[in-house]
């Protein structure tokens, strides 16, 4: 049997890899990919807690479903924004998007 700790450690590592991508990558699309990894690790945690702590409940699964919906909405809008910015400013580098900085 696999103890819960394995899943939690795995999800934590995946989350940190995603976080590293978000912090470090220049390309805005790559940043969104990092966010996807983070959301996935959260989902693993939700399902793992449901399975190990309250297998009769439904909350973990329902939350995971809502994470799916939010991830889809986030990707759709995020990529649309990037495409729009690319079309106006010919750049997808996150550091260049500084029009609102001051």
């Amino acid at each position, binding site marked *: 049997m696999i103890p819960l700790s394995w899943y939690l450690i795995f999800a934590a590592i995946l989350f940190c890899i995603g976080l590293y991508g978000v912090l470090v990558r220049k390309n805005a699309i790559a940043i969104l990919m990092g966010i996807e990894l983070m959301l996935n690790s959260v989902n693993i945690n939700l399902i793992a807690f449901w399975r190990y702590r309250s297998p009769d409940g439904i909350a973990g699964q329902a939350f995971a*479903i809502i994470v*799916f*919906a939010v991830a*889809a*909405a986030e*990707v*759709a809008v995020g*990529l*649309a924004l990037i*495409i729009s910015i690319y*079309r106006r400013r010919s750049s997808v580098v996150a550091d260049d998007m500084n029009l609102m900085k001051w």
Partner: protein
Amino acid sequence: MQSDWLFIGLFLLIVALFPGAPIFLAGLISPHRSNTQKSQTYECGLETVGDTWVQFRVQYYIFALTFLVFDVELVFLFPWAVAFGQLSMFGVLSGVIFILILFVELLAAWRKGVLEWA
């Protein structure tokens, strides 16, 4: 339950092997007489000009986007459909409302002219 998925996992291996092995074997027995002329990018007899990365229309992205949204919502309807026999009238109606929201979405995309190709 787990053993059903075990079958699918094994099937995944086999199914990758079935097309993969002939491709590999054919690579062993087929001739290898490549030259630069032969392996040029195909372009109806002309030489290729520029990068492969031509600019694509944003329309492709928008179709994929519409598909994504529909897909996510439809997937949520499957548990509802499985539980249909035990649902109360309220449950059925909230599912129907869910589908109607989807319909409104389709109409909105239609009005906006997203679904036109030209």
